[in-house]
């Protein structure tokens, strides 16, 4: 009986949080899909891409990302205005309420650099996405070949 009660406790707690109207975290409302990494030879920096959907009535804000596999992960945005390709660091990326934000080639992306061990094609690695309210979302990213243009069939 005691054990059964203890198991039920988290559910009861979760229920009471919703009942008292306390907001769930940003991460809890984010659904990540199409997560992939473009693997480049040697220790060249790689781009990581993901589609983030927000099911909440409130916008969410992606602030940063971390992974044990790379010492550095930066949120970047590419642009090709006036015939010039540029890359700039960005502070955050908003995911609108009941909307989505896409990190995709040629636009927003995570730049992964200083790999601990080189990534091989087909491998899955965990990247933790950090949101403005401090909540986090662990997402599996699949390593794709350099000449891939999307996440591949397996992740549609």
């Amino acid at each position: 009986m005691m054990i059964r009660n203890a198991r039920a406790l988290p559910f009861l707690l979760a229920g009471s949080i919703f009942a008292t109207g306390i907001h769930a975290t940003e991460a809890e409302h984010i659904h990540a899909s199409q997560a992939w990494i473009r693997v480049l030879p040697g220790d060249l920096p790689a781009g990581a891409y993901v589609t983030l959907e927000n099911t909440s009535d409130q916008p969410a804000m992606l602030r940063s990302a971390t992974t044990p596999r790379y010492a550095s992960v930066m949120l970047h945005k590419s642009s090709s205005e006036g015939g010039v390709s540029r890359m700039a660091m960005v502070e955050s990326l908003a995911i609108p309420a009941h909307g989505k934000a896409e990190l995709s080639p040629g636009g927003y992306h995570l730049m992964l650099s200083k790999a601990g061990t080189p990534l091989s094609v087909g491998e899955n690695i965990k990247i933790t996405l950090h949101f403005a309210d401090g909540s986090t979302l662990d997402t599996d990213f699949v390593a794709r070949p350099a000449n891939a243009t999307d996440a591949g069939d397996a992740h549609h």
Partner: protein
Amino acid sequence: MPLRRTSRLAWLFALVLGAIMLGGCQRSDAIQWQLTDISGHMPDLDFTLVDDQGKAVTGKDYHGKVVLLYFGYTHCPDVCPLTLAQLHVVMQRLGPLADGARILFVSVDPARDTPEIMHAYVNAFDPRAVGLSGAPREIEALSKRYRSAFTREPDKGDGQYEVSHSSAIYIFDRDGKAKLLSTPDRSQDDLVHDLHLLLSQGNPA
């Protein structure tokens, strides 16, 4: 009369020249390029660089091939791989015709892009891609030749830096003549369409 003969010859010459020009115009009008036609507006392919095997090469070494010239660098994780991946898809769609083309990926970051790194990099995209690096002034000369520019952005403090560069793809015919310009807003269909025409023209096969 020698004078009359000379003027008659001059007339004939003008007539022939006119006919050639007219024919030339009609011929170029007949080809419906999807990309921007830069024929006569950009100089022929000419450079002195080092290929990804470490060999000194010039523009003439690629005569006989349709050339797709693109500036970039290997520490570019997003736009350069995207462009090269798209060009790989275009080459695949061209089938055996693609063997008549070369993608020349010219590094705007010769300090980091050695022939070894360039070799591994370009081959990760397409077997018909060649990585070119070389002396900074040679790369600058080539970039300026096609009215493009590149800028090394400030160091981020850890020795890492980005390079802003032209996003255009310059396309040359088998004689090294500048023909077409493609920009990121152009579709793969446009590239396939025009390259198919260009590769079918004067196909030695």
